[in-house]
């Protein structure tokens, strides 16, 4: 993501959208929800791109983060903003249970994570004393007033999630730039080559899993305080896995901007168009898009567009850069 693009993105998200849509609770809420998906998509892409790990289990991190934060604020009086961080930490801790799966190669890791996500979902339903069971938790505290700004409004919540997404992007950017990022990038196709020069491959993967879980968990926590309600089927819903994967694949998961733009586009189109055309089962189109993208262009829409618009010479470079 270059500077011009980042600046344009920041201006649109921080200035244009709040001032044009700020009064419309429905629309600003919609964009905020899209940003929730975007944040998870970035976290998913971080793990997929820099860790080389495809996860079908991010719903688990989302759910654990949500419940951690909700329970801490409701039962232990922890301030909401602190609880958002705790939600992330909770998700990271839950990811520790998944670490044995890091020994497994690609597809087996994906399947193991899917199984873990199911286990967490069942546990959430069963642990009624903590999660309220299938009945759910009601009246989770809203985001508070802080430095004179009421973050409990739809617009306030939008600003908070926007900040969270920007923080995840900045973190991703710096990890990618670091020597860790270089080593992780290389591990993708040449793990032996990296290990033989001393890269502790498993340790790096563990770090990426922790970071990705933290990001997803704190976003789950934000969501809990944004909608003030939780039940296991919702918090651990497969949607929290499906949407981000579609967004990241659609936008190109090996880029920084891809997952964010993909999420904004996918979520808004899904809610505004697909949902109105077919009120039930509109995720069908998401599934079809996912399948289509994997066949046509697994590295996202960007390479297709570049192919059409860029002069032929530059194609190779554009694909190689994964910018």
């Amino acid at each position, binding site marked *: 993501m270059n500077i011009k693009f980042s600046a344009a993105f920041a201006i649109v998200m921080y200035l244009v959208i709040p001032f044009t849509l700020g009064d419309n609770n429905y629309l600003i809420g919609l964009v905020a929800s899209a940003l929730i998906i975007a944040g998870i998509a970035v976290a998913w892409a971080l793990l997929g791109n820099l860790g080389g790990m495809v996860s*079908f289990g991010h719903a688990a991190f989302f759910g654990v983060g949500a419940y951690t934060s909700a329970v801490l604020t409701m039962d232990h009086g922890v301030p909401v903003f602190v609880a958002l961080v705790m939600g992330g930490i909770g998700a990271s801790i839950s990811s520790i249970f998944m670490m044995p799966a890091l020994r497994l190669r690609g597809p087996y890791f994906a399947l193991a994570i899917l*199984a873990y996500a199911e286990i967490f979902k069942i546990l959430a339903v069963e642990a009624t004393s903590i999660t309220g069971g299938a009945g759910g938790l009601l009246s989770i505290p809203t985001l508070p007033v802080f430095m004179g700004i009421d973050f409990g409004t739809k617009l306030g919540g939008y600003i908070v999630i926007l900040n969270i997404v920007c923080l995840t992007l900045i973190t991703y950017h710096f990890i990618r730039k670091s020597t860790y990022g270089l080593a992780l990038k290389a591990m993708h196709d040449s793990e032996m080559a990296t290990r033989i020069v001393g890269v502790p491959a498993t340790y790096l993967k563990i770090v990426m899993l922790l970071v990705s879980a933290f990001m997803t968990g704190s976003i789950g926590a934000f969501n809990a305080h944004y909608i003030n309600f939780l039940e296991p089927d919702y918090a651990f819903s497969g949607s929290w896995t499906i949407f981000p994967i579609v967004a990241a694949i659609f936008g190109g998961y090996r880029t920084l901007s891809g997952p964010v733009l993909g999420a904004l586009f996918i979520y808004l189109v899904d809610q505004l168009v697909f949902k109105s055309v077919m009120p039930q089962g509109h995720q069908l189109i998401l599934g079809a898009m*996912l399948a289509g993208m994997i066949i046509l262009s697994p590295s996202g829409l960007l390479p297709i567009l570049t192919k059409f618009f860029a002069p032929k010479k530059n194609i190779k470079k554009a694909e190689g850069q994964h910018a």
Partner: protein
Amino acid sequence: MELTAQALFTGLLMGGFYGLIAVGLALVFGTMKVINLAHGELVLLAAYIAYALESQTGLNPMLSLPIAMAVVIVAALVTFYLTNQIKKDRELNSLILTFGLGIVLTNGLLMVFSADIYSTQSSWFMEGVVIADSLFSMRSEMIAFIVGIAALGGLYWWLNHTWHGRAIRSVSSNRDAAKLMGMNPTKAELWSWGVAGVLAALAGVMLYVTSVIHPPVGHSLTIKAFVITVLAGMGSIPGVLVGAIMIGVIEGLTTTYFQSSLAELASMTVFLLVLLVMPSGLFGKKGAH
């Protein structure tokens, strides 16, 4: 003691049925190294076809098999065609692709049949059967078990004694060698997907008569199928039966001594333990590393 015997018996019957659900996934994985994450949805599709025919025409669900098979075979072959279009990193990308197709199927079923829960109208299937004076089961469970064992046995025979079956086996064990011997791997793969479709259709109709169906069931079936396949050691047919019975028994015991909602948790935990301790499964030769 009686309680345990009953739990083991129920588990055994469930195991035969689970084997039927899982074996199509195991077969395709064996030949193509593709884990079809839409497999459970294919099973569910057959179940819905049985429901549709029964509710529209009053047809006995068992008689809907030919139509269910036809539809599911076509769906399986479409899935095969699409996975074959993947250009790079097929092992991983096919997971995402079939995951997407599973979403398509689930939501397609949701659109057509709504989120309501259905089960067969015929009470004949629900009637009790008692074996050895004390072991109780529903007639449908018995049928599903017998069909499952028969299908697995038939498949095992087919793989070992027919030309197509042997072609599939040789392609699974060594693709390049099979090619050199004049076999067409794509044809063998096509056959394995077709047969997986037949098995999924059988499993789906059995699902409809033994249990209740609604759209999210497909996803759980997929998970159950790959849990069993991994337990079995990818691609081993006898292993599938043993893995399936193991899962069935674990679920039976958990349901009897704890509660039914924990059954899935127990089997999932066993799955993870096996995956981590023996990545190549209980009967597998090749490792996951």
